[in-house]
């Protein structure tokens, strides 16, 4: 996916150290790279945010695509456990690796369907887990 010619030199960057590793991380506006990237990767769970990114033409930017590829380290330990919206975050991160999805998310209809179905699924899967109480 990220095999496009990259115009970034950060592609080979290592993921930031998770908190508690004792390393003295440089801060960006008061936040570590870990905090900012965690926040960003979780914001990707929001379909409207994805649409916003698409509308800014970021999803067709090779550098940004490389960054999305790089962000996949969130799907592995020890980073995985810091994600508090695991379902949509990981799903969208996976979808964003696909060219087609990156192109289609500009469509308002798709965003709206993702939004409604995501919200419905967020409730329904709990109903399925406890059918006796539903």
């Amino acid at each position: 996916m990220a095999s496009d010619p990259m115009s970034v030199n950060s592609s080979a960057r290592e993921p930031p150290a998770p908190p508690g590793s004792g390393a003295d991380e440089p801060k960006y506006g008061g936040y570590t790279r870990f905090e900012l990237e965690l926040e960003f990767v979780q914001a990707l769970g929001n379909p409207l945010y994805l649409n916003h990114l698409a509308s800014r033409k970021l999803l067709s930017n090779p550098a940004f695509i490389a960054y999305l590829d790089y962000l996949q380290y969130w799907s592995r330990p020890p980073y995985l456990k810091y994600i508090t919206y695991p379902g949509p975050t990981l799903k969208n991160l996976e979808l964003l690796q696909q060219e087609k999805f990156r192109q289609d998310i500009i469509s308002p209809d798709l965003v709206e369907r993702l939004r409604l179905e995501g919200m419905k699924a967020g409730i329904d899967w709990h109903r399925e887990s406890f059918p006796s109480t539903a």
Partner: protein
Amino acid sequence: MDKYLDSRFERVEKALATFIDSIAKYNPSEKLAEDLVAADRELAAGLKELERHQNNHARILQLRQETASLDQQTKDIIGGLWNMRKEVKSTPATQYPATGPKYQFTTHELLNYAKRISRTTLPPAHLLYNSEPSESQQAGGQGGQPMEVDSAAQTPMPGLGGGTATAAGTPAASAAPTPAASGPSGPGPVTTSTAPFSQPPPPPSANQTALPEDFKPHINLLTGYQFHPWPTEDKVRMGGMAAYQSLVSRAVDPKGYDPEEEERRKKEEEEARKEAEERAIREREEEERRMREERERMARERERARREEAERSGSISGPAAGAPAAAASSAGGGGRSQFTFLDGMDDDDDDDED
């Protein structure tokens, strides 16, 4: 079996023939007759034997048939099994995509994680157990324009908040004035089908404890609440990325810039400045005090010079001048205090000039 019966037939025939011969020769013999009877009896036994033989034969045939059918059945079963096995073996086992390495974790970690994400993944109970999302929510979601593509980075998702707000706000706005303005007839459409006129609604009967439908949204704090399994726009706007963006838009390089650190530094500077001011004030006071003392000292010296002058002139003019000299010396303390007082006045003047 045939031989067995044939021999008996032969015997009967022979016995009969000899018996007939004997009769024909007019020489019947009792013994021959008995032979014939015995042969006949044996023949009957043989026939019975034949019958049994035939029965047995039939039974054998039947059993053979049965065996054959059972054999066939067994073969069918085995053939079926074989086919089944072939099918099972030829069924491609689902190849799960290589899920990558497996990660070890402890129950404790898992429970901790579950606890942590429960706030963001578990919808509130009223959404879970009540019903489908209400119409207004759906309408709000659909109606709020989900995008304004042209808007800048700071307004990424107008539809999300806007849609929810209108959905929650509209019923409140439309329903709120009704009970207040038109009084008791307000809740009419829902509850007062029995009292269509503008009388006070009948006092609620014992079984009518439920609230009118259109009151419910006002009482329920969660009206219009929507559960989002992802960070909402508000959260994104309040987070670190927004802070970063605001720094960039203020032309501050965020790298290495820590607002808390900055705050601390400013505070320190402020404190240092205050301290410097205080020190300056103290120094000025010190200076003034020194100058005052200097003036006092000069005044005392002038006084002393004046007294010496007086004494000198007194000693020249004789003892008569002793009295004023004594008086002057005795009044020294008073004079001094008087000067001190004057000094004070001077100081005041100085201060005023300052």
